[in-house]
């Protein structure tokens, strides 16, 4: 180390930003993984455009990756950044609003040309002044030039060399926050080992060059250390929500003994679940990349009929296409998990942005009286738990379950204490093995009101089911009015009964008081941080986050009754609030809604909750 000041920081937010081809997602991931390996709590948020290579140098084409790391468990990726790395003026402009007062801004000096500045839409040729960054610690290294010089001897062509500039920026950040380089280097080594080892070497050199530049320049007065977080004992890894979802299904397959089948069609931001499951042939997973969303769910329904744990994965527009088939699964009473990684809607909407606006569709978006269980995950790592739980409910209660995730938790990652499969409960589906005396009744029910799962191949269990109304016992077609009414109520009662098998709803903070902050799904981290902040200021605020949406936990009304006011916070125009009003007309639900394709910020939540408390 040199003679600079070494300071200790509790938590830091860095935002890496550049053109969508600049490799910002990789840069951010390498930084956050390194921090996680050092024992920090981490949470990340990739924020990228829908286009693969949007017009270069424009604000629309800016891709960002925010890393929040700290000496404690980190609940969310942070609102505002302490350090902004901007690879061009457009990135600077797009992210100006996310700067903490006095933040460090690192911008590639080589990008501050008239052409780039104009393309980013600045009115003057001095973006720093135009954005009012005089009070900020702005550092303008010529990242492209220095990368070029550092790699001059590699023999690579200019284009390949310039592509390494993101690693130069990473090197600067490694120096500033005293991070080791070895994880990033070994990752690059394995990534390019087969394709082009020279590229791995060049990237490693660029990291060194960035690191050495930062050490030698006088523009960084301080460097920082962030102590490891006092996390629970155990073995940890980083994980993002989509991979966690895929792995949760693998776990449910192992625990139930039913092979895992996934029929899906690629759609942003859900595709990674299908990609991950396609890799998991090592665990016996079968995947079908179907010809469309409908075939995705229909192949899954076929696999469920044949005895597999069947899942299909999608996002909002795909859920629309799957609606009819979902009704078939409700009618046939087959286990099925439909994952909806929600994005901005309606229609194609905002494919890469997050939202919670598919709730009503998940609850009600089908013809007829068509109840399905709905479960929502609330952080990248707990996608594992809720995927497992959704599959458990589906199989044990013989019903389709919609698992709601969202773009924010699906792409975000965090440190996760790896559970042991021995900690997870058994899954015992009601599989029929042989026909009872008097013949097999496909729609006879157990204590959960679940019918038995009798798949083809089992002697004496030959039976016919389908989408026409079923006779309440025999499962054959019935047009009888009384039977229909009975079956409509039976299907609803079966889903309602799940409430007896799920955990009670918990409250963070006091169990009674002035204000209860209610959230569901992926907003948990931001809501928790906001409530913690208000509580630290002595306010009577508690938080409850719902993961079981249909049915709701049995103690829900009891909790609501203990607070004077209830604020439902969600990333839509009040869908969960409307649902709660329908379920619990005795309470008043106030709303804090946001529908911008962005997660909440802790700061805006605090402002709005404070306004309610006044």
């Amino acid at each position, binding site marked *: 180390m040199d003679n600079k000041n070494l300071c200790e920081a509790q938590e830091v937010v860095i935002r890496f930003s550049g053109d969508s081809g600049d490799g910002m997602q990789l840069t951010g991931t390498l930084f956050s993984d390194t921090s996680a*390996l050092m*024992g920090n709590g981490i949470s990340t948020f990739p924020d990228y455009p829908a286009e693969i290579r949007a017009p270069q140098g424009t604000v629309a084409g800016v891709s960002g990756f925010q890393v929040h790391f700290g000496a404690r468990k980190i609940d969310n990726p942070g609102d505002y950044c302490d350090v902004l790395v901007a690879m061009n003026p457009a990135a600077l402009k797009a992210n100006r609003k996310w700067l903490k007062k006095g933040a460090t801004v690192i911008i590639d000096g080589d990008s501050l040309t008239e052409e780039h500045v104009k393309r980013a839409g600045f009115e003057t040729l001095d973006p720093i002044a135009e954005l009012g960054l005089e009070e900020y610690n702005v550092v303008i290294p010529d990242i492209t030039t220095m990368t070029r010089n550092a790699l001059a001897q590699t023999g690579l062509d200019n284009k390949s060399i310039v592509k390494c500039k993101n690693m130069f920026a990473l090197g600067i950040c490694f120096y500033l926050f005293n991070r080791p380089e070895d*994880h990033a280097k070994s990752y690059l080594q394995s990534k390019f080992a087969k394709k082009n080892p020279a590229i791995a070497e060049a990237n490693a050199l660029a990291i060194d060059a960035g690191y050495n530049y930062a050490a030698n320049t006088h523009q960084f007065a301080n460097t920082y250390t962030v102590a*490891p977080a006092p*996390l629970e*004992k*155990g*073995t*940890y*890894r980083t994980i993002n929500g989509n991979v966690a979802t895929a*792995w949760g299904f*693998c*776990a449910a397959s192992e625990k139930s003994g039913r092979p895992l*089948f996934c*029929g899906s069609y690629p759609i942003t931001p859900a595709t990674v679940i299908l990609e991950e499951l396609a890799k*998991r*042939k*090592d*665990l*016996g*997973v*079968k995947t*079908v990349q*179907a*010809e*469309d969303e*409908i*075939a995705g769910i*229909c*192949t*899954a*329904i*076929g*696999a469920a*009929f*044949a*005895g*597999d744990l069947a899942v299909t994965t999608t996002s909002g527009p795909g859920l629309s296409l799957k609606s*009819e*088939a979902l*009704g*078939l699964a409700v009618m*046939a009473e087959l286990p099925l998990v439909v994952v909806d990684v929600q994005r901005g809607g309606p229609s194609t909407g905002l494919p890469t942005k997050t939202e919670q606006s598919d709730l009503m569709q998940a609850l009600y978006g089908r013809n007829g009286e068509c109840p399905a269980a709905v479960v929502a995950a609330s952080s990248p790592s707990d996608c594992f738990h809720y995927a497992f739980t959704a599959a458990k409910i589906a199989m044990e209660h013989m019903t389709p379950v919609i698992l709601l995730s969202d773009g924010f938790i699906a792409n975000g990652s965090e440190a996760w204490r*790896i559970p*042991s*499969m021995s900690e997870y409960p058994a899954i015992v589906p009601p599989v029929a093995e042989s026909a009872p005396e008097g013949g097999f009744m496909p729609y006879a029910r157990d204590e959960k009101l679940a019918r038995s799962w009798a798949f*083809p*191949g*089992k*002697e*004496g*269990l*030959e*039976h*016919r*089911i*389908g*989408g*026409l109304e079923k006779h309440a016992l025999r499962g054959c*077609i019935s047009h009888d009015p009384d039977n229909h009414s009975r079956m409509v109520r039976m299907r609803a009662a079966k889903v309602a009964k799940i409430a007896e098998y799920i955990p009670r709803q918990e409250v963070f903070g006091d169990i009674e008081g002035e204000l209860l902050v209610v959230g569901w799904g992926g907003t948990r981290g931001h809501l928790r941080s906001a409530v913690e902040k208000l509580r630290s200021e002595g306010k009577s605020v508690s938080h409850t986050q719902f993961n079981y949406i249909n049915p709701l936990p049995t103690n829900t009304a009891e909790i609501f009754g203990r607070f004077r006011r209830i604020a439902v916070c969600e990333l839509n125009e009040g869908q969960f609030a409307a649902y709660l009003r329908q379920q619990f007309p005795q309470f008043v639900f106030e709303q804090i809604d946001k529908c911008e394709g962005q997660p909440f910020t802790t700061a805006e939540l605090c402002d709005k909750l404070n306004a309610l408390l006044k």
Partner: protein
Amino acid sequence: MTQYNYTPADFKSDQEVRWCPGCGDHAILNAVQRALPEVADALDIPRRKFTFVSGIGCSSRFIYYMKTFGFHTIHGRANAVATGVKVANPDLSVWVATGDGDSLAIGGNHFIHAIRRNVDLNVILFNNEIYGLTKGQYSPTSKLGKITKTSPYGTVEKPFNPGELVIGAKGTFFARSVDMEVMLTKECLVEGAKHKGFSVTEVLQNCVIFNDKTHALFAGDKATRAEHTITLRHGQKMLFGKDNTKGLVLENMKLKVVTVGEDGYTIDDILTHDAREQDTTLHTMLAAMKYPECPVALGVIRSVAEPTVYDRAVEEQVGQVKAASKIRCVDDLLHSGETWTIE
């Protein structure tokens, strides 16, 4: 090989058959119930492994009448659901009962992709050139100009010929029969079941209520069929007619009907049917033959071996990856890649 000695009665369910009296579907049901005992013995398949999947339409009620596992799904999706069944459990013998509306209109996409993947399904395509269950609207196989409730002045859209569609999508098996030819239908279905890959048996079926006699001009009775259809059999000369004297020759890249012994044509000039030829050209021409210019081709028109059968290939790939992988359980998976420990 187990001999099951099933009879057609072993495949009859307790459900009352509710198709209209005189509907061609009765004959198809009869043919299928005769075919399955043969399939069971030929391929060593016990009844518990037969699974029928259908979509929506008159044809799709089929599954209720079979004493097998059955799944009556939603309109157009039978091929997709059946793909899931077969991939999940390739040991099952999976059959699809579907119609011209179900598989060629609303389910057209699933139909061609199931063909492309060569999933080992046996499709029975009931082609009555009409929507029956919705009471008489034109279908994608209705003849141009057909007057129906939704085309009171005649259709202005050309029909699909299912055979051309299947072979055009590089289908590996296509056969055609007529509802009244129960034994021929049975023969085609048994061959389709033996075929490893996607098989389509189109059955020209009469809808007595909404499209009566649509196939009658060439298939109305035995004598008409003898003159206006040709039953193709692999390795045999393409001969037809009451006395088997008419035959097909290929001239100027076109099929032509000739009479043996007339205009200088001898039996040696007549084409010999090769259902196993990979090239689709002649099979397409045979499937496309139309009355009155040509006889309508029946029998197994195309049956070619294709090494990649989807459901088996998925299973094999899983087996290979499993054998080579260090990850053997979910605990292994969770600990794969970079981890760190907090003491």
